């Protein structure tokens, strides 16, 4: 499991960083992201779902399982 603290990183750069991290991982591996409230916590999970990953949101943390 990898963790990325993306607080203070604006959209869409937070998703760019998360996406590159996912690209380096194997299918089934887990990535945890910490995101700012507002646009980041709304947009990044949506983008991750659109890319086909399994996504759970818990407060300001997002858990992504790579498809």
């Amino acid at each position, binding site marked *: 499991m990898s963790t990325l603290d993306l607080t203070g990183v604006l959209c*869409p750069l937070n998703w*760019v960083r998360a*996406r590159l991290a996912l*690209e380096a991982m194997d299918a089934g591996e887990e990535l945890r992201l910490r995101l700012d409230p507002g646009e980041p916590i709304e947009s990044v999970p949506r983008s991750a779902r659109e*890319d086909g990953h399994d996504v759970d949101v818990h407060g300001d943390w997002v858990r992504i399982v790579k498809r």
Partner: protein
Amino acid sequence: MTLTDAELERYSRQLVLPEWSGAAQERLRDASAIVVGAGALGSPVATYLAAAGVGRLGIVDEDAVELSNLHRQPLHFTPDIGVNKAASAAAKLAFLNPEVQVEPYPARLDERNAEAIVMGADVVVDCSDSFETRYVVNDAACAERVDLVEAGVLGFSGLVLAIRPGESACYRCSFPSPPLAGAVPSCREAGVLGAMAGIVGAIQALEAIKLLAGVGAPLLDRILQLDGHDMGQTIVVTSRRDGCEACARVPVAAEAYH
């Protein structure tokens, strides 16, 4: 080498594309492109390739900027009149994206230097303005097995064809011989609108990026014809021609298009 923070920010709007990836961006950065001609097609082509992050760009043009060029060649500005077009283009591209290594070649591409210029490139984008040069570029790209994006624009008409030598039809497969002298008017005689050249050049740039990054479906074996009057688009399917003087002897690649 991974992408720097500045590169992530510069390319963020393409890095978020579902079709794109960090690997695609690195393929562009590690790629080398030759743009033949820094005029009406070459301006948008070189601009978009540099902006997208193609690592090395060679710009070939021996002509100087003229006042009558400026309506359709947006890399050149009024104070550039008299300056070599390759140098003028390179100066603008360095401002646009300093991450890109731009090499101006203030020379005319001909039979003697063509293979040396395209050798080692990953893609050649033909933005030349004569049939003679077009066949020379095609033959050199085939001989060196470098991918090629051909295009032409005249009046409100445009044409684009992507070529993977040895795998898809080359320009000479589809057009075995040049039109008779005088049969097709030149840009000087027939005229051209800058915006029409811009559309065709932007399509050429997109095709080059698709070939380099390995995304999408390039116009291989398909000639796109555009009519700017009514925005009509026609795809003409073409194929390799047995005995083509340019590409028949190019061996078929062991690996299919990635």
